[in-house]
C-alpha cells in the first residue's frame, strides 16, 4: 500500500508522541526476554481465569497484547460526543421505521432499501419500548485514517460483543505489567456492569418498580458464552437459556426451584431470528415461544430491541450522516468511510473495474465473515465475489481500502512491531443518558500488514487507556469523601485491635530450650 498509516505511538521520525513518551520509555527499557516472560505470565493468567472465546470447536484465550493503546483526553471527548450523536440519530431512525415512517415518507432513504434489509422485522412494527430505547447497548467500530482522523467503519446495534475483554484486559495487564501504569492516570472501565444493569432496570415495563433482569444466552457452545456469563455474574443476575423461560398470558416466567418467577427485562445475546419460533425462525430451539407477543403487550422488555439490524445494515450505513442532519439537525462529528452502493449500475461497474483495490462486504453480516479484501484476495476469490455481487447487488457494499492506524505490538519472540488496530467503544443508553465506556475494545490484526481485526479471523486485542488529565467529566460520586476527622477516628479505632495474636513459640524460653533438646536427640 502506498499511503503510510498513522501510528498511535510514534511520529513519522520514529520518536514517541508526547503523551506516549513515558510508556515508550518503560517498554524500551524492557528486554525482549522480559517481554516474553510477561507474555507467558499473561497466557497463564488468561488460561487460569478461563477468559476465552470459542472458535470452531475450540475454546481459546483472546490474544491480548502487552502494549496498551492510549487515547488522549481531546481524542476521547471527540469520540464520546460522536458516538452519542450517532446513537441518538440511529435511535430516532429505528423508532421512525418501526413507527410512523416519517423518513420514508420524506423520501430521504428509499423505502425498498429498508424493507429489503434482512434484519428488518415487520413483527417488531408498532412495539413500544418503555423508555423509548431500542439500542440499549451498542458497539460502533471506529478506525483512524492516514491523517489520524477517527471514522466510523460500521455500526453494531444488535449484539455487540467484546466488552468483557475490555474489563478483563485491564485487570490482566495490571496483573502482569504493573510498572507501565506508574506514570498514567487511566480512566477506569470497571463500572460497566453496574451501568448496564442500571440501563436494563430503567428499561423495565411500566409499573414494575423492582424488575427482574436476566441475561439470555444461546448456551455454552456460543463463541461469546464467556462474556454472557461474565456480564450475568458481574450484574448479579441470572444467566438463562431459552429452555429456562416460558410465556403464559403474554408474560414471561422462569422455571425455578421455588416455582415460576416473573421476568421483566431480558438482555438477550441471541439473534433476532432465534428469539421466538412463533414469529421468527420456526425451527429455533434457543428461543422462547410467545416472547414477541409478550414484548408487544408491554410485559417484558427485550434488550436490544428486535429489528435493530436494519439500522446497522451496511447498505444503510451510508445514510447515517444524513440521519444525523435529518433528526438532530447537527453536523456529524465522526465521518463515515466512503461507501459505494452496488445497486446503482454506474457505481457497481466502477467498483468491479477496480475490485483489487476494494473491500467488499456482505451488507447483513458481522464478524468479518464473507469479507473480500481486494489487495490480498486471490483471483478465484475476486471472481467469486464479482459473481456474488452481480447476482445480488443489494447483499453487498464496497469501500476503498482504508489504511487504518497502527500501534506498536509485541510480535513473535518479544519483538515490537506496528500492527493495525481499530476501536470499538461500547455505549449504554438508559433512556436519559448515553454512557460511553472510556476506551473500548481495540482489536489488533496480528499478521503483518493485515487489516482484518475480527477475533474470528485471527485478531487480538489491546488494553485501551483513556488518559485522565482532570478535564474529563467524572461520573458523579455517590459517596462524598469523608471528613478528615472521621478518617482519624477510624484509625483510632483500629489501634485497639492492632495487637497480633501469635503462638507463644519464639518468645518462650522454655520452648526454645525444648527445641534445642529435641534437636540433640537421644544421647548415650
Amino acid at each position: 500500500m502506498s499511503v503510510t498509516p498513522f501510528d498511535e505511538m510514534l511520529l513519522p521520525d520514529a520518536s514517541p508522541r508526547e503523551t506516549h513518551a513515558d510508556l515508550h520509555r518503560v517498554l524500551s527499557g524492557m528486554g525482549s526476554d522480559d517481554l516474553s516472560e510477561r507474555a507467558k505470565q499473561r497466557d497463564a493468567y488468561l488460561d487460569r481465569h478461563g477468559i476465552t472465546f470459542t472458535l470452531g470447536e475450540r475454546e481459546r484465550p483472546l490474544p491480548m497484547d502487552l502494549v496498551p493503546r492510549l487515547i488522549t483526553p481531546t481524542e476521547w471527548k471527540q469520540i464520546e460526543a460522536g458516538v452519542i450523536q450517532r446513537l441518538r440519530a440511529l435511535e430516532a431512525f429505528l423508532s421512525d421505521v418501526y413507527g410512523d415512517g416519517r423518513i420514508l415518507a420524506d423520501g430521504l432513504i428509499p423505502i425498498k432499501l429498508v424493507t429489503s434489509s434482512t434484519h428488518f422485522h415487520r413483527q417488531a412494527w408498532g412495539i413500544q419500548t418503555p423508555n423509548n430505547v431500542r439500542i440499549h447497548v451498542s458497539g460502533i467500530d471506529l478506525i483512524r485514517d492516514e491523517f489520524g482522523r477517527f471514522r466510523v467503519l460500521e455500526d453494531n446495534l444488535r449484539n455487540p460483543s467484546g466488552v468483557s475483554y475490555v474489563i478483563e484486559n485491564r485487570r490482566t495487564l495490571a496483573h502482569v505489567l504493573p510498572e507501565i501504569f506508574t506514570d498514567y492516570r487511566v480512566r477506569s472501565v470497571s463500572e460497566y456492569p453496574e451501568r448496564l444493569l442500571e440501563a436494563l432496570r430503567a428499561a423495565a415495563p411500566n409499573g414494575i418498580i423492582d424488575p427482574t433482569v436476566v441475561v439470555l444466552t444461546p448456551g455454552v457452545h456460543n463463541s461469546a458464552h464467556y462474556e454472557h456469563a461474565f456480564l450475568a455474574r458481574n450484574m448479579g443476575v441470572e444467566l438463562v437459556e431459552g429452555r429456562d423461560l416460558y410465556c403464559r398470558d403474554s408474560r414471561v416466567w422462569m422455571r425455578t426451584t421455588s416455582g415460576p418467577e416473573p421476568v421483566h427485562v431480558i438482555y438477550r445475546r441471541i439473534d433476532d431470528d432465534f428469539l421466538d419460533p412463533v414469529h421468527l425462525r420456526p425451527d429455533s430451539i434457543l428461543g422462547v415461544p410467545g416472547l414477541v407477543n409478550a414484548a408487544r403487550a408491554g410485559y417484558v422488555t427485550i434488550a436490544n430491541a428486535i429489528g435493530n439490524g436494519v439500522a446497522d445494515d451496511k447498505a444503510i450505513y451510508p445514510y447515517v450522516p444524513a440521519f444525523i442532519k435529518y433528526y438532530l439537525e447537527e453536523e456529524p462529528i465522526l465521518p463515515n468511510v466512503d461507501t459505494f452502493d452496488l445497486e446503482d449500475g454506474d457505481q457497481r461497474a466502477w467498483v468491479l473495474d477496480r475490485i483489487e483495490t476494494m473491500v467488499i462486504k456482505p451488507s447483513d453480516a458481522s464478524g468479518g465473515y464473507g469479507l473480500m479484501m481486494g489487495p490480498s484476495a486471490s483471483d478465484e476469490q475476486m471472481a467469486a465475489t464479482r459473481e456474488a455481487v452481480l447476482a445480488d447487488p443489494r447483499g453487498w457494499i464496497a469501500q476503498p481500502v482504508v489504511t487504518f492506524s497502527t500501534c506498536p505490538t509485541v510480535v513473535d519472540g518479544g519483538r515490537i512491531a506496528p500492527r493495525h488496530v481499530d476501536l470499538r467503544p461500547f455505549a449504554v443508553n438508559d433512556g436519559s443518558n448515553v454512557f460511553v465506556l472510556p476506551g473500548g475494545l481495540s482489536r489488533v490484526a496480528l499478521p503483518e500488514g493485515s487489516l482484518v481485526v475480527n477475533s474470528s479471523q485471527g485478531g487480538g486485542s489491546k488494553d485501551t487507556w483513556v488518559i485522565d488529565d482532570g478535564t474529563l467529566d467524572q461520573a458523579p460520586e455517590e459517596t462524598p469523601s469523608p471528613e478528615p476527622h472521621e478518617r482519624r477516628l477510624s484509625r483510632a479505632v483500629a489501634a485497639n485491635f492492632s495487637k497480633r495474636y501469635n503462638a507463644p513459640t519464639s518468645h518462650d524460653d522454655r520452648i526454645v530450650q525444648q527445641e534445642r533438646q529435641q534437636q540433640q536427640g537421644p544421647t548415650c
Partner: protein
Amino acid sequence: MLSRLAESFFWLGRYVERAEATARLLAEHHQLLVEDHSVPEALAARLLLEALSLPTEGATTARTMVKRVVGTDADQSTIAGSVSAARANARAVRDSLSQDTFEALNSAHISLSRGIAFTSSPGVALHRVLERLLVVNGVVDWTMPRDQAFHFMVLGRELERIDLVGRLLDIRHDEWWPASGPAAVLRSAGALSPFLRTGKPMNSAEVRRFLVLDPAFPRSMRSCAADAENAVRGLQAMGASDSSQLLREVGMLRSELEYALITSPQDVDTHVENTRASAIRAHEEVRKAFFRQHGTIVWSH
C-alpha cells in the same frame, strides 16, 4: 487429646487463614494501586501496612509495601511468617495430618523461602502461594475426621477470620477509592460474586454490612461467629474440658450479630468493634480452657 496437639491445631488454623487472607488482600490492594491512582502510592502503602500492624517507616512505594507484607519467616504478621508458623505447627502434629495437607503447606513455604520474584508483578507470584493454601484448606475439609483436632483448627480459623475482616474494613478502601474501592474490598475477601448476587447496590454501607452481617457468606463476621460456636459445641460434645465461659462468649457474639438491628451505617461499625473485642476475649478463653498452662509447671532447673 493432648493439649499440646490441640494448641498446634488451633494455631495451624489461625496461621493458614492469616497467610491466605493476607496474600489475597495484598494482591488486590496492589492491583488497586496500579489501576486507580486516586490515592498517592506512599499513602496507599501506609494504609495497608497500618491495617496489618506492620511498620510503616520508609515504606513509600508499592514495591516496599509488597516486600514488607510478604515479609520473613521471623515475623508472624507477614505472609512468609504465617506460612512458616503454620508449617511449624503442622510438623508438630504431622502424624495426624494427611500427607497432602503437609505437602501443600510445605510447598507454599518453600516457594516463599526461595524468595519468588515479587518485585514487578506480585500478583503472579502471590497466586502460587494462594493456590497452595487453598489446597491445604480443601484437603483438610474432605480428609480430616470431624474430631477434636478438626474443631480446634476451625475455631482458630474463625477467630482469625474475624480479626482479618476487621483489618480489611479498617483500610476503608471504600472511602479512599470511592470508584473502585468497594469492589476491591469485596475481592479481597473473595466476596465479589456472592455480594453481587444479593442485588444490593455496591456502595460503602452495603459492602460493609455484607461482610459483617451476611448470614450465608462464609467469611462474614456473623458466619465466622456461628462456625466458632459450632466448633466449641463440637468440642464439648466430645468431652473436652470445661469451656462454658468460652461457649458463652462465642454464643453471645453469634446472637448479637444474628439479631443485629441496623438503623445507620455507624451501627455496623459498632458491631465490628464489639465483634473484634469479643473474638479477643474468646481467644483468651480458649487458651485458659484447653492449652498448656505455662504458669503452673512446678518443676525447676
